[in-house]
């Protein structure tokens, strides 16, 4: 009897345990079903059910399919359509941009940097061999006017703006690799921002200085026969007692003048296109023009065929602007050298505007004759009537 009572008690406790176990098992199974039914993944036939009429969309309606061809085309610059005003946004990947980036971070940094270093080394070598070019007959103490205040102001306007542009521009190209590791991000970031703004606004001062200098000096910089003689004698730079005759500007100065004018104009135009982006198509037009006279620039340089997209034009502008800048920096380094430590008495021309008579006779003899003749004309008494 006692045994039967105990068995009934055990079953009474066992039933809730079994029910609880069943509930736990159901709980484990039911959520899985519920999860499967609430998935965002549509039923198998949903795609065809909601697909728009016409040919099937590329990539599938829900992009569940991998379409290698689409991505291949996009990778190669395929442009789609967008509803926003900027239609260029329809291009997801601009492949030539990668070429530009590789070029900019590779050869630009290397060769342009070497070009500037080579110029400095060559000038240092020349200075070591030739020394300072002195006034052979010594300073006379007599001064003659060489440049007016306006001429010097134009020169310094161009010079100061060019130095500012050069420093800020070099930071764009070399700052990240040269300066950043030295001064750190905290300083490099704000400094680069300031230099970028400075570069953009100073550009206009350079353009004004360039235009003024062109107007003031073009008359004196037209090449003539005396330049050939000057060049044949190396401008007298290589031997101490050689002073080939020259007018107000000798052939070397004329080379500097035309170099600055042409390179400066090219810098101004490409810089303008960078300041006002996507508005100009300089390279498509220039390459087409050169193609008409038989110079296929894209084929020579291994570039894609024109016409170029607006972003490609910007990339060409950026590359061209950098190359021309460095060529001009090299030219100006030589100009600064000869105008300061390279030649005695040369700086006075742009410093005070007056130069020593002996210096002028040695380097610009024809100009001195011209000035003296004019002076004599002015001081001579008028002939008797």
């Amino acid at each position, binding site marked *: 009897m006692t045994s039967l009572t105990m068995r009934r008690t055990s079953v009474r406790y066992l039933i809730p345990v079994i029910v609880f176990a069943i509930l736990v098992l159901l709980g484990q199974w039911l959520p899985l079903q519920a999860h499967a039914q609430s998935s965002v993944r549509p039923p198998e036939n949903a795609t065809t059910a909601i697909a728009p009429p016409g040919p099937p969309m590329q990539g599938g309606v829900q992009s569940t399919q991998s379409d290698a061809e689409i991505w291949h085309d996009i990778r190669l610059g395929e442009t789609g359509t967008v509803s926003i005003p900027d239609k260029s946004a329809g291009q997801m990947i601009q492949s030539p941009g990668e070429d530009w980036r590789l070029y900019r971070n590779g050869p630009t940094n290397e060769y342009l940097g070497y070009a500037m270093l080579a110029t400095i080394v060559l000038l240092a070598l020349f200075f070591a061999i030739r020394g300072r070019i002195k006034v052979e007959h010594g300073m006379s103490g007599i001064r003659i006017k060489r440049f007016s*205040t*306006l*001429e*010097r*102001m*134009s*020169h*310094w*306007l161009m*010079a*100061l*703006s060019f130095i500012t542009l050069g420093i800020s521009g070099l930071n764009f190209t070399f700052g990240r690799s040269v300066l950043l590791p030295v001064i750190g991000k905290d300083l490099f970031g704000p400094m680069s921002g300031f230099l970028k*703004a*400075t570069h*953009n*606004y*100073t*550009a*206009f*001062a350079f353009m*004004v*200085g360039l235009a003024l200098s062109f107007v003031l000096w073009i008359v004196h910089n037209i090449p003539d026969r005396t330049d050939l003689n000057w060049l044949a004698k190396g401008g007298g730079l290589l031997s101490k007692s050689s002073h080939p005759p020259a007018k107000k500007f000798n052939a070397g100065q004329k080379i500097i003048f035309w170099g600055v004018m042409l390179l400066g104009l090219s810098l101004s135009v490409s810089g303008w296109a960078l300041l006002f982006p996507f508005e100009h198509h300089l390279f498509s037009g220039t390459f087409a023009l050169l193609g008409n006279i038989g110079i296929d620039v894209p084929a020579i340089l291994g570039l894609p065929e024109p016409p170029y997209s607006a972003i490609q034009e910007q990339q060409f502008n950026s590359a061209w602007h950098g190359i021309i800048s460095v060529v001009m920096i090299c030219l100006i380094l030589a100009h600064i050298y000869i105008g300061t430590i390279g030649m005695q008495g040369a700086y006075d021309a742009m*410093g*005070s*505007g007056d130069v020593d008579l002996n210096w002028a006779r040695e380097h610009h003899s024809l100009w001195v004759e011209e000035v003296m003749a004019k002076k004599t004309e002015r001081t001579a008494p008028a002939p008797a009537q």
Partner: protein
Amino acid sequence: MKAFLLSIAVLLLIVAGARFGLKPLWETPSAQAYSTDNVRLD
């Protein structure tokens, strides 16, 4: 020296003129850049 100082003055004048003249053209005010006027959300 006079010409040099004059060139600095002219340079600063041009830079300042360009700065004030072109800033509105180059830089969009934040009120305009982040405005939700005429934005249509379908």
